[in-house]
């Protein structure tokens, strides 16, 4: 019974935790521009993150080592350092976007400018990391993030022509004034948003924080195989709302307000209140995850003590890194750079850094010295390799497409 509860809780947390500012913005943006014609990318991304998150969860449960330990070990000091810099910068960029997202959600709720909320948001993130237990932090924000289910209700309430949505979903390709280049560019962005590297850093380090062992594999797998796909459905609902409301009206999503507006249009003030709370929880939760991930990657590369399973003074460098990252994100946002734009770039850069993160996971998940009887099977390896190819393709194509489309214009 207790086990069942833990599994359910894990799944719910995974659903709520799956969606972050990158998913919110990118899905709404893509829904408004292409309708459901890019739904297949979300499906592709969710399958990919499931494959690799399961591998990293299994590695943690069997060997007790989180992902970045392995990246350094298998890639060596030099290539590992390169991977560290790339992953760290992408995670930091994502953190900046998440803190901006929290501030924007607060601005929408209160009408007070987000620049005033932002230092407060960053401070609150730090305070929670400093004081609150890992499992509690995960549960509270994961469960609150579940409120984003309101997008699914809103989509249903908007009473769309389901046939035409299905029609769009089964006919991939650009429409109207869009070109194949912008279609491909946003495809990569959406893929990057679904497979963001910090998700596996956080997932695997979280496994160590919660002291996973072999018997916890069930929890890890159910989180991944049930929680993530349901989180992916939330993403599709967000895109669906934008497709129904914005695509015919010619509205392009450029602000967080436009992301949440469909919930208000469909469900009124109650819907608006729920979606605001959901967005706040999702971005705040993701801000916690990304700032922890900044600390995890650096500490795990250098072998420093890390984690919330020890008191802050025992993992002092880890906490210093987190504090510095939060200060950096305040400074960057202070320049009044648009957090939504930061988000759009962060998901594309995430797509570029993907192969470096996922290759070492695949290598270790096949290593009998680590995995004993739990190493990858042939079918899994086949799909993992297909994805590795896709990741490489996305990573190589990202910059040329960014130049060619002038970042998706």
């Amino acid at each position, binding site marked *: 019974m207790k086990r069942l509860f833990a599994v359910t809780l894990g799944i719910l947390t995974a659903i709520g935790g799956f969606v972050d500012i990158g998913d919110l913005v990118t899905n709404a943006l893509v829904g408004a521009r292409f309708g459901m014609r890019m739904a297949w990318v979300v499906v592709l991304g969710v399958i990919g993150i499931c494959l690799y998150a399961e591998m990293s969860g299994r590695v943690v449960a069997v060997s007790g080592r989180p992902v970045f330990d392995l990246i350094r070990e*298998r*890639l*060596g000091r030099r*290539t590992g350092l390169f991977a560290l810099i790339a992953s760290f910068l992408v995670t930091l960029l994502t953190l900046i976007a998440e803190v901006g997202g929290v501030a924007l959600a607060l601005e929408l709720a209160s009408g007070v400018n987000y620049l005033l909320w932002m230092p407060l948001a960053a401070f609150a993130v730090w305070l929670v990391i400093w004081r609150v237990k890992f499992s509690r932090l995960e549960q509270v924000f994961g469960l609150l993030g579940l409120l984003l289910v309101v997008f699914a209700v809103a989509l249903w309430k908007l009473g769309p022509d389901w046939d035409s949505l299905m029609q769009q979903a089964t006919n991939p390709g650009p429409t109207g004034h869009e070109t194949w280049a912008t279609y491909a560019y946003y495809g990569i962005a959406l893929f990057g948003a679904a497979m963001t590297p910090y998700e596996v850093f956080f997932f695997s380090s979280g496994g160590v924080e919660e002291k996973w062992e072999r018997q916890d594999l069930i929890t890890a797998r159910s989180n991944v195989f049930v929680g993530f796909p349901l989180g992916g459905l939330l993403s599709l609902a967000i895109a669906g709302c934008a497709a129904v409301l914005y695509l015919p009206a010619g509205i392009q999503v450029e602000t967080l307000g436009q992301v949440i507006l469909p919930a208000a249009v469909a469900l009124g003030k109650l819907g608006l209140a729920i979606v605001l709370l959901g967005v706040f929880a999702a971005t705040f939760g993701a801000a916690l995850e990304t700032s922890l991930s900044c600390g995890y990657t650096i500490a795990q590369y250098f072998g420093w003590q890390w984690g919330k399973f020890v008191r802050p003074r025992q993992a002092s460098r880890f906490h210093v890194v987190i504090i510095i990252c939060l200060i950096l994100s305040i400074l960057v946002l202070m320049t009044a750079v648009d957090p939504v734009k930061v988000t759009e770039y962060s998901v594309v850069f995430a797509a570029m850094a993907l192969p470096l993160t996922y290759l070492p996971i*695949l*290598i270790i998940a*096949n*290593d*009998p*010295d680590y995995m004993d009887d739990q190493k*990858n099977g042939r079918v899994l*390896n*086949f799909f*993992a*390799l297909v994805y590795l190819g896709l990741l490489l393709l996305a990573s190589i194509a990202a910059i040329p497409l960014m130049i060619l489309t002038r970042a998706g214009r």
Partner: protein
Amino acid sequence: MRLNDLLGHRVVDRTGRDIGGVADVRLVQDGPLQPSMQAAFRVDGLIVVEKRATRLFGYERHVGPALLHWLVHRRLGGVWYLPWEDVERITEGAVEARSGLEDLRPLEETPRH
């Protein structure tokens, strides 16, 4: 000697022919007993790869998806095992072998445990 210095040393056989670079050192825990009552790790031999590549990702062994395995091995060329008895001496930047290339065994044939 430090491992990082040894890795990447060129290996030349008895005729002076360059046969590859040092990629790893094989240790066997059957050396003299240490104060901690454990056997020391004895240097058993060197793993030599034909082409210059010091990172093997552990792929010099039979692990991993066949495709990755094949890719890595294509980059490495032949992977040989040079037992310590066959090492004549180690100089600045090079290891001189007592045997010839034709005497070397592929790494796959050495027992794993």
